[in-house]
């Protein structure tokens, strides 16, 4: 079973389309867990989702080859079948800014992770400092060394990453145009040096994780 952890704003929606094309009905998309939100309704939702998944363990193993979505890496540890974990990481500063910009342009989003932006009007700096948004990549992966992952792609090297992922899983995944992106961000987000430093400081674990992933990616390229 391939477990593909889609961290928010890390090209997962684009990958989702590639996986749907590559695996057809053998892929399960799991997007209900509201990871990175510790609002009480999200915590309750995750508990309920895990209970439900456990009750369908045999069915999951028989019907699916891959589970992809927003969930903590350990969610499917209970599946009694060999598992491989894959994910994509992104420059932590860019990811935070992209996440904030995404929520700002989705005022209709009814999701607790949007509350501080839509209901309370948090600025980028306030959003970044909120505990739910700090080191989000580590929160998703529950890992500090990526040792559990057989593949870690980089959003910044998406096409290379997709090629490698195809080789890793033995399925040719089609290159699909980026989905769920902000057209205005194509020229890069405008960020003051002060905000950049602040976001780096607030995401030290993610910075280290990303550096590790980057080094691992380059080492494989050199090999």
């Amino acid at each position: 079973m391939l477990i593909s952890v889609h961290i928010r704003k890390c090209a997962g929606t684009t990958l989702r389309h590639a996986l749907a094309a590559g695996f057809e009905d053998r892929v399960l998309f799991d997007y209900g867990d509201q990871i990175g939100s510790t609002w009480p309704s999200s915590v309750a939702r995750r508990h309920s989702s895990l209970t439900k998944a456990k009750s369908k363990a045999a069915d999951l193993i028989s019907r699916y080859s891959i589970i992809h979505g927003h969930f903590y890496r350990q969610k499917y540890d209970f599946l009694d079948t060999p598992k491989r974990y894959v994910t994509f990481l992104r420059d932590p500063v860019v990811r935070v800014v992209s996440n904030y910009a995404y929520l700002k342009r989705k005022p209709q989003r009814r999701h607790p992770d949007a509350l501080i932006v839509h209901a309370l009007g948090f600025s980028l700096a306030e959003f970044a400092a909120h505990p739910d948004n700090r080191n989000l990549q580590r929160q998703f992966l529950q890992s500090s060394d990526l040792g559990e992952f057989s593949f870690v792609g980089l959003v910044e090297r998406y096409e290379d990453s997709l090629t490698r992922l195809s080789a890793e899983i033995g399925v040719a995944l089609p290159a699909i145009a980026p989905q769920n992106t902000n057209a205005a961000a194509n020229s890069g987000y405008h960020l003051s040096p002060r905000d950049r430093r602040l976001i780096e400081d607030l995401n030290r674990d993610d910075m280290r994780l990303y550096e590790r992933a980057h080094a691992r990616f380059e080492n494989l390229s050199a090999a």
Partner: protein
Amino acid sequence: MAQRKIIVAGVSSAGKSTFIERMLEDQSSHETEVFFAGRLVRAFGLTGIAPRSLNLGAKPVAIVHYNTQSSWISTAEHVPPVEEDPLVQALRSHAAAYELYLCYAPDAVIRERMARRTAVEPVLGETDYAYPNTRLCAEFDRIDQRERLLAFAKAFHSHCPQPTVVFSNARKTSLLSWEAFRHGNPTPELESALM
């Protein structure tokens, strides 16, 4: 007995008048006087940049209704920082302590209220002239509501370190602690108020 001094602040359509009306339901009219910012400015000549003094009457309770959206020295191009407003300066020097209620609603809710509103301060009956929807909507789009509220609270920090936020959306009104408003920590109470 010392006069109880209350400031109710927020942008236009944030719910200041409605909140004051609720407060007045619990007070007799001869005990409480409501001061609209515009009247204070005119009565005490608070239109220049030099600090001037003011008077909040002799009734046991004085409530100041203050619109944070602009200030009395704003121009069409520039809304100066809250702390530069002459009325803010006069209020700060007038008393050592205030009770501060900061009215806040999500931007989308404010815009919707502004669009359908027809009269200025209809609840308190202060005036009956038409609400300048277009001008206020345009003005609102030029400012950051939260930033101005935080700046207002900062200006009065020594007078009231823990203001109360009167949060309202399309469904209900809730009182939030200052910490909850500032940090948005995910508590059941805050989620219930915001959803």
